[in-house]
Structures are given as structure tokens and as C-alpha cells.
């Protein structure tokens, strides 16, 4: 469409707004409620323009372009109008500094002023120099606010990770729309008139109204009303380093805001993030990070220099080549680190390197998102939230899940089996497709449902979350084949795909068995914390004759080591992860390695060289990657020969089926996320989700202490009423100490109040 804006000819596609069209041709129109990617709202009235043939001053952010439009954005009338609108807006917002003639030159007084509990002006505001109001005042050219100030002194609302100061809110509604965009709906405009604000139902804490702490609201807020507590007073960053999130296999790109060689906070780079990427990467700044190598002397780990530690490790390991040695790592590490540890294990130690999470087979993210028909097993909102969010838009979304997960709620068909029977549902679907009789005994899904959905699935992409057991993966792989569709097994970690490409999953089970049997005498563990993930391994690991651990923390596993190497954090190294489609994702160094820590790949190379090996002399991570890419492809774990287990029938002597599922707030075994205080806060109790009807008949309400009792034992927990669980099912966060009551992930329990 063709139009004229301030005498400039502009061509834009239909559906563009006048404001966007102006922006594209370099004409800036102020505006505070509009935000790219959010539905236009037209609330702040700052973007008014004049359009020939249209009366009054329409808001350009809500006005779609029309062929031949003639638009003016800067007539004297408009400039005046904008000034008075902004002035009115500022009569309810602290404006002392905004229009202060010494603005920006009050440095001497700044620090003490920030101790004032209420933000009175920009120099007291966490968004100072990052605020859209400041920009707008300049753009509009407002010099004075003459209207009387209507001060409010509403209470600041503290939440995990960020605070809401209603006194700085301009009611632009960006946060509300951003939250809707995430399908959380946690916040809304509440009350009206002078009382009007943004809040939650009955002013409940965010975590009780469906907030997942994705931070989208904080990212879009133009003022200091919503500001994260991390890096609150550090001011703006000097640069933003684009890198890859070190948690799940959604591999989101994140921006690391850096100034003066320090990490300030994480910024979204315009994409969706989840709480872990947005607020959970601060573990790299935890004071308990390892700063120096440690060597065990007289039974105690003591600090040592690199030379000494490498020498002790080299000498110790040299005694155990072949089957007595193993290397354990995980998809938390970069390709470069994984490749070298594998090379070390095979070339220097004549053995193998394994990883617990090297089961991942993906397709390119864009292919996954554009798939029309998708079948999902697993709770992606907990494990891979951003992938889950993207899958909501699939035309035909079928979800197999005992719980009413986020995706189950958004699906076109939701098959809700009894917990533990997910694989059997996939088998039944497979049989229905080949016109066999689906055997549905005890599954909790009826034949009609299966028969109705089976024909819709031809060519579907079958997506298996990392929380699914091997049986589900195997059944899904067979189903995908029968459907002539694609199989996507989402990896647990950011680089599970890399570990999988290197074939590190093949010998994992046997290796763990060999450790239990005492056949392994020495190990090199890098970026993996088996002692935390599987407490039953503590004993066999302590029985090893020589153990070298490489990590950023003194983990449960590192505490058992003979030598500990301090590794650099994900923000301190250059390297790559492999994305689900095998594409390379960059990890960029934003700050220098902490103290004497070193990048993983480099430590392994140095250790190999110390042991006299050749072929470990690399100039940098790039040359490691080059060598890795020149290697022939590895065999993958074999799913074909696997025999499906027959799941146990839930016995009926207990009332409830307890299912343990991973939580968004505690990633993996929690080695990293447990170091983030607000993530710890969100997982502070052993919450057990109970269906409202069950809660009623048990006579319990949210927050009550309960006792769960199985054949194996009992634990104390706290109830939380939730519509996500069906009647007869209880959901609990997966934690390592659940082995007190259960062996797998599902068991029968009785529930009673803790008195």
C-alpha cells in the first residue's frame, strides 16, 4: 500500500499500522503503550497523528494504513497536544528528575538517594537510563510539568525475581498483554478510577495465579514499575552478548548484559524465554563457585595450583586404563568439551565416555513449529516451556498426559491415561492404525477416543518430552514409523543433542552397572553430578580408587573426588551446542573465567598432554570444533531391539496414584537452580497437587501438611489444590530423595493429614 507520511512516500503491506509505517521510513512517533509483538491497545494517546479526510487525531498505533493516505505526524497542533497528554500522564508519575534542569548531572548525590524507600524521581529508579518515559519526554520536548502532582503511595508488591511499584505505573497495559501472549493471564487491570492498577485476583501472590515467572511483563514495561531485582542499581549495560541458554533443549538465545567486565543481568532478545533463562543463570555468580583446583591430602580436599592438580590427576589416572576407567559427562557441556573428553577416554584411557542424557533426536526448530499435526507426550510447560508455547499453534494438537498440562488444555484432543500408562496408549494408537484391536484394559482411555484420533494422526510429528521413560520413547518411535511421521525426542539438557550425536548414550547403562559392581576403579566426571541425581551412587562412587571431577561447584560428586578442577561458567567460554536439528548454536564469552577457573575443553586437553598424549594441542575451541566435525558419524542408541515393559497394574489397596514430574523451577538434579534464591523459594515445600474434589473429601485445603504412604515408606508433604491433576492422582515435583517412597516415577499411596 502506498501512503504519504510527512511528505515522504511510503510503501508497506496492508495490515501495517500507520505508526509502524512511519517507523519503517525513519519517522519517529512517540508512544508508550504500543510494543512490537503485542496487540495494539491505543491507551496512551501519545501517538496521535493527523490524517487527511479523517476528523480529529486518530492514534497511529491502532490505525491500519489505507491506500493513498496522507499523514502528518508533527503539526504544531499535534506537538502541543502530545505535550499536554504527556504532562497529564506525568502528573501521576514522579517527574522531578524527568524535567530537572540538572538532569544527568547530579551524580554526587545519587547513591544515598537510592536508599530512599520510595522512588521519587529517575535517579531513585531502577530503570534510570533504560526507561521509555525518559526517552519520550525528550522526544516530545516536554520541559515542565505544571499540573499539580497527584502523588500516590501504593504498596510495592514484591514477587520472586521482580518487584511491582504501582506508583510508577502508567497503566499502558503492556505487561497485561505480554502475559496474555504467554497464555498465563496472571495479571489484569483491576479496579477503576483512582484505584485502578495492575494486579492479580484478590491480590494473591503471582505464583498462585498461574504466573510462571517468564519475565515477559518486565521486558515490556516502559517504566520502573516492573523491574527485576538482579542488577537493580547497576544502570545500563555497555554491551549485550548474544549467547545460548545453558538449561533445556529449547536452546533459546539470551542476551547477557555486561558492563565493566561484569555480568549485570539477562535480557530477552525479543524472543520468549522461561524463568530459567531469564532469571536463573545467576548461578555463575554464586559465591560458592570453585576458584582453584583442589587435591585430596590426608583425606581432605585442599586448594592447589593447576600444575600440581594436573600432575596428581595425570599420575592417578594413568594407573587405570581400559575397562577399569570411565568418563561421565552430560549434555550440559559444550560440543568442544564433550568431544575432547570422549577423545581423552578413547585415545588416552582406552575406554569410553558416557552421558546419561544422550537420548535426543530432533528436527530443526522451524520444522517442528510449522508441523500441522503434532502428538505430544510429557509436560513441556515444565521441561521445555518455550517449545511448549510454540506447539500451541499446531493445527491438530493431540496430547497424551495423565495431567491437564498447559498443552493438554490447549489441545484439540487430550487422551488422559492413568499415570504410567502413556506408552501403552501409544501402543494402542499404533494398533488402531493398523486396524488391530487396541488393548485398553486399565489404561483409563476408552476405545472410542483412540479410534477417533488415530486417523487424524497420519504424518504427524510425535514429540516426546525429556520427562518420558524409555518405554515411551520406544513406543513413540514405532508409532511415528507407522504414521509415516517424524519422531522428536527432546533432550534433557541444552546439548543433549551434542552428546547424542557423539554416541555417548550407548554404553551409559552398562557403565553405571559396572560402577555398582565395583568393576570400575577410576573415573573422570565432567559437568555431571550423579551423586545428587542418584543418591544410591554415592557409596559406589566413594569406593572408587581414583576420581577426578570437573565442575563449577563443589558438587555432591566433587566432594568424593581425589582431584577437583574448577571449570569456567557458560558465560565465560566460547563454544557450541548442537541444536535439535544438529545445527550449531553459539556460546559466546561475555566475561573472563572466574578466578583461576578454565574452560572445560582446555582442562581436558591439558590433562591429556600431562599424560603424554599427542593430538591435544589446540589453539582454541574453534580448532576443537573443526576436528570434531571432520569425524565420521557415530552409531546411535538402538531403539529397535528394545522390549517394552509391561507396566504394573496399579493396585487398589491404596487410594491414590502418585506421579513424580519434573518442575520448571528445579532443573535436572538442581545443582544449578538450587543456587538461585528465588527458585529455591518457589520450591521451598514438597508440594503435592491434589484435585479440588479429592481435597474436599479428604478434608484438606491448600497448604495443609499431609503424609504420603506407600509400600516402601512414607514422607511428609504439603498439599496444594490444583485443577491440573485428575481425581485419584497426586502430582509431586521430582526430587532425588523420593526414593524413600517410590522406585520409579509412579506409585500407589495413601494420604492422610499430618497431625
Amino acid at each position, binding site marked *: 500500500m502506498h501512503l504519504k507520511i510527512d511528505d515522504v512516500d511510503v510503501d508497506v503491506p496492508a495490515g501495517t499500522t500507520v505508526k509502524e509505517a512511519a517507523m519503517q521510513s525513519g519517522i519517529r512517533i512517540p508512544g508508550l503503550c504500543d510494543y512490537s509483538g503485542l496487540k495494539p491497545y491505543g491507551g496512551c494517546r501519545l501517538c496521535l497523528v493527523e490524517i487527511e479526510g479523517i476528523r480529529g487525531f486518530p492514534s497511529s498505533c491502532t490505525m491500519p494504513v489505507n491506500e493513498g493516505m496522507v499523514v502528518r505526524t508533527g503539526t504544531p497542533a499535534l506537538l502541543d497536544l502530545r505535550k499536554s497528554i504527556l504532562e497529564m500522564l506525568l502528573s501521576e508519575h514522579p517527574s522531578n528528575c524527568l524535567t530537572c534542569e540538572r538532569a544527568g548531572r547530579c551524580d554526587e548525590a545519587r547513591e544515598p538517594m537510592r536508599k530512599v524507600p520510595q522512588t521519587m524521581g529517575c535517579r531513585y529508579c531502577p530503570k534510570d537510563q533504560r526507561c521509555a518515559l525518559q526517552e519520550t519526554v525528550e522526544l516530545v520536548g516536554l520541559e515542565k510539568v505544571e499540573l499539580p502532582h497527584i502523588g500516590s503511595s501504593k504498596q510495592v508488591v514484591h514477587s520472586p525475581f521482580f518487584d511491582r511499584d504501582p506508583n510508577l505505573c502508567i497503566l499502558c497495559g503492556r505487561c497485561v498483554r505480554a502475559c496474555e501472549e504467554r497464555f498465563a*493471564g496472571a495479571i*489484569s487491570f*483491576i479496579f477503576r478510577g483512582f484505584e485502578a492498577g495492575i494486579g492479580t485476583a484478590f491480590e494473591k501472590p503471582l505464583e498462585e495465579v*498461574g504466573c510462571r515467572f517468564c519475565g515477559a511483563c518486565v521486558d515490556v514495561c516502559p517504566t520502573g514499575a516492573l523491574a527485576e531485582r538482579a542488577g537493580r542499581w547497576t544502570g545500563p549495560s555497555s554491551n549485550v552478548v548474544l549467547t545460548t541458554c545453558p538449561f533445556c533443549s529449547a536452546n533459546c538465545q539470551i542476551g547477557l548484559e555486561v558492563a565493566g567486565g561484569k555480568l549485570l543481568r539477562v535480557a530477552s532478545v525479543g524472543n520468549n524465554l522461561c524463568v530459567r533463562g531469564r532469571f536463573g543463570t545467576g548461578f555463575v555468580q554464586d559465591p560458592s563457585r570453585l576458584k582453584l583446583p583442589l587435591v585430596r591430602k590426608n583425606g581432605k580436599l585442599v586448594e592447589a595450583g593447576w600444575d600440581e592438580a594436573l600432575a596428581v590427576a595425570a599420575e592417578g589416572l594413568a594407573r587405570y586404563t581400559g575397562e577399569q576407567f570411565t568418563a561421565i559427562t552430560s549434555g550440559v557441556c559444550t560440543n568442544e568439551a564433550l568431544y575432547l573428553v570422549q577423545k581423552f577416554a578413547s585415545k588416552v584411557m582406552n575406554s569410553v565416555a558416557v552421558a546419561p542424557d544422550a537420548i535426543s533426536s530432533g528436527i530443526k526448530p522451524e520444522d517442528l513449529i510449522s508441523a500441522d499435526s503434532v502428538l505430544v507426550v510429557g509436560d513441556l510447560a515444565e521441561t521445555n516451556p518455550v517449545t511448549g508455547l510454540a506447539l500451541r499453534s499446531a493445527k491438530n494438537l493431540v496430547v497424551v498426559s495423565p495431567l491437564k498440562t498447559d498443552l493438554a488444555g490447549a489441545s484439540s484432543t487430550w487422551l488422559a491415561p492413568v499415570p504410567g500408562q502413556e506408552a501403552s496408549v501409544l501402543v494402542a494408537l499404533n494398533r488402531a492404525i493398523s486396524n488391530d484391536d487396541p488393548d485398553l484394559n486399565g489404561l483409563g482411555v476408552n476405545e472410542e477416543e483412540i479410534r477417533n484420533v488415530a486417523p487424524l494422526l497420519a504424518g504427524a510429528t510425535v514429540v516426546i518430552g525429556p520427562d518420558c521413560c524409555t518405554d515411551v520413547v520406544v513406543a513413540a518411535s514405532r508409532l511415528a514409523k507407522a504414521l509415516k511421521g517424524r519422531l522428536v525426542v527432546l533432550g534433557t539438557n541444552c546439548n543433549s543433542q551434542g552428546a547424542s550425536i557423539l554416541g555417548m548414550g550407548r554404553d551409559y547403562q552398562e557403565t553405571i552397572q559396572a560402577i555398582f559392581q565395583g568393576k570400575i576403579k577410576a573415573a573422570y566426571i565432567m559437568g555431571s553430578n550423579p551423586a545428587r541425581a542418584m543418591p544410591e551412587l554415592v557409596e559406589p562412587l566413594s569406593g572408587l580408587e581414583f576420581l577426578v571431577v570437573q565442575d563449577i561447584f563443589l558438587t555432591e560428586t566433587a566432594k568424593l573426588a581425589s582431584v577437583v578442577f574448577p571449570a569456567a561458567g557458560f558465560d565465560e567460554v566460547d563454544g557450541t551446542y548442537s541444536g535439535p536439528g544438529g545445527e550449531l548454536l553459539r556460546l559466546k564469552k561475555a566475561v573472563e573465567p572466574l578466578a583461576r577457573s578454565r574452560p572445560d575443553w582446555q582442562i581436558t586437553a591439558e590433562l591429556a598432554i600431562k599424560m603424554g598424549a599427542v593430538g591435544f594441542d589446540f589453539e582454541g575451541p574453534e580448532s576443537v570444533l573443526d576436528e570434531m566435525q571432520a569425524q565420521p558419524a557415530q552409531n546411535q542408541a538402538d531403539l529397535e531391539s528394545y522390549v517394552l515393559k509391561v507396566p504394573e497394574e496399579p493396585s487398589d489397596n491404596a487410594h491414590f496414584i502418585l506421579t513424580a514430574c519434573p518442575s520448571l523451577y528445579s532443573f535436572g538434579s538442581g545443582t544449578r537452580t538450587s543456587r538461585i534464591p528465588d527458585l529455591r523459594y518457589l520450591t521451598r515445600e514438597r508440594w503435592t497437587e491434589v484435585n479440588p474434589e479429592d481435597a474436599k473429601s479428604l478434608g484438606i485445603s491448600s497448604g495443609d501438611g499431609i503424609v504420603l504412604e506407600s509400600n516402601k515408606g512414607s514422607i511428609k508433604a504439603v498439599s496444594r489444590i490444583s485443577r491440573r491433576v485428575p481425581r485419584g492422582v497426586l502430582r509431586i515435583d521430582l526430587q532425588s530423595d523420593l526414593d524413600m517412597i517410590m522406585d520409579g516415577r509412579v506409585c500407589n499411596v495413601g494420604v492422610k493429614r499430618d497431625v
Partner: protein
Amino acid sequence: MEAKIRALLEELPGKEGALIPLLQGVQSTLGYISQDAVEAIGEVLGISESEVYGVATFYSEFRLFEPGEHQVKVCLGTSCYLKGGRELLERLSRSLGIPPGRTTPDGRFSLETVACLGCCSRSPVMAVDGVVYGNLTPLQAKAIIADLDE
């Protein structure tokens, strides 16, 4: 509660535009909109509880707290407002220790504002449990409440 809401919804033409009628339905049976009701309406309509609450707090006709044993309504219609309704409200709010729209923690009193009680000639007025008191000073209003509290 959810079952009740579903029953109410049955009588409506559909989910579209059902939010306000549902809130009205709840208010007329319960006398107010409870937390349970807000959650259940959200669940039934597939919207969030905060959104339901947002709409409920936008319209002054909805009450979001269980009414107290005694219900105090202060008129803020134009006439009462001009003749001191605001001062009445402030005084009562202070002596009961609750903002308008709430119920005292002991459940004895709830305080609300209304747009007009139809007795403009006697403004400012307030109604306590349906009885209208006119030509009030803030002190008189406080005394009436204090009497009830004996």
C-alpha cells in the same frame, strides 16, 4: 462451585459475553463474589482468575467480600458528595479500619459506597442494614455504628 457455575452457564446463550451474567448470578445467590467463584468462572470460561477479578472490580455493582453482619452503605451520589459524603466515608473507613469494599476481619461490618440512595433531599446519607440515615455529620455516622457494635 464449578458445578453451580456450569448450571448457570446452561441458561445463557453461550460462553461469549457470559462473564457479567455469571458474576451477577453468583452475586444474587451468594450475596457476593467469592474467591472460589472467581476461580470456577475462570475455569468454566477458559479465562484466568485475574481477568475475572479485573472485570468484577471494574463494576461497582459487584461485591468481592463476604458481607458483614451489618452492611454500611455510604452514598457518594453528586448531592451527597457535595454535602460531605466523602468525609462520612473517610471517617467510617478509619474507625472500622477497612477501605470501602471490604469487611472487617471479625466479619461484623462491611463498608461500601453507592451511587444514589434516592434521598438526595436529606444528603449526606448512609444506609445501615437497609435503614437510611440522613443529614449526617461524620461524628453522628460514627456514633450510629458504635451503637450497633455494643
